[in-house]
């Protein structure tokens, strides 16, 4: 019985900090009416030194187009393991993409930056269209894009 209690105490102690180390975050990307096919978008994170850390979402399922998301592709070589389980459909012009996920707390106020590369068939590539520092204070503040993205917000 004692060992059971000890096990319970240990597993509880290990579990609770884990629960406290992530927060649900909604990433909202609104596209312009750019008058083209659906946009491929990739959302990814770099650390304070600018090094690629990992990807959060890939909108667009065909790997042959990923080279057009050129900053992301340069960092990953287009490795599908980076985006397995976090890939969905491309996003149409004028549409809004809302992604809700559990994001690690450690990413906030620690020099991490969220980037979005964008590309549209037969139109100009737009790497690093969004680059926004992940800060608690910046949550909820829309950031304008340059070419295909009207605005991006995380909160």
């Amino acid at each position: 019985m004692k060992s059971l209690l000890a096990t319970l105490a240990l597993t509880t102690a290990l579990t609770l900090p884990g629960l406290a180390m992530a927060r649900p975050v909604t990433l909202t990307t609104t596209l312009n009416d750019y008058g083209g096919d659906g946009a491929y978008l990739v959302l990814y994170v770099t650390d304070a030194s600018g090094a690629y850390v990992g990807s959060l979402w890939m909108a667009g399922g065909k790997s042959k187009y990923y080279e057009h998301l050129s900053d992301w592709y340069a960092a990953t070589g287009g490795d599908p393991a980076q985006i397995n389980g976090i890939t969905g459909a491309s996003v149409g012009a004028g549409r809004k993409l809302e992604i809700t996920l559990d994001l690690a707390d450690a990413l906030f106020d620690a020099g991490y930056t969220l980037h979005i590369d964008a590309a549209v068939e037969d139109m100009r590539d737009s790497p690093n269209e969004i680059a926004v520092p992940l800060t608690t204070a910046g949550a909820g503040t829309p950031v304008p894009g340059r070419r295909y993205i009207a605005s991006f917000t995380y909160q």
Partner: protein
Amino acid sequence: MKKLFPILALAAALPAGAALADDDDCRVPAENWQPREAVMQMATTQGWTVSDLEVDDGCYEIEGRDKDGRRFEAKLDPATLAIVEMERGDDDDNGRAADPAPAGTVAPPPNGLFGSDAPPVVVTK
């Protein structure tokens, strides 16, 4: 005016890869397209088992298995039904990586960004 010419020359020299376009697109007028039934008949002749037939990049695109049971994806010219591109198994013939696993089929990658194995919830409006 002198500056305009170098700028124009530079713009003309930009590689086609600057835009998202593929060299395996088909550009066939609608009136020249063969019907889907003709595609299925051609597939049967080849010994293919077709699991999906759709239009992509202006071409017919077939997913299925060949007569030896190997998975493949083929693009066909919609007028001649000639094979424009053939990808087999996990890698295509240009050595490109496989398409990633869609959300919900496997857990997100263990990159330290996600607080759980739950896939992101995604809504497009």
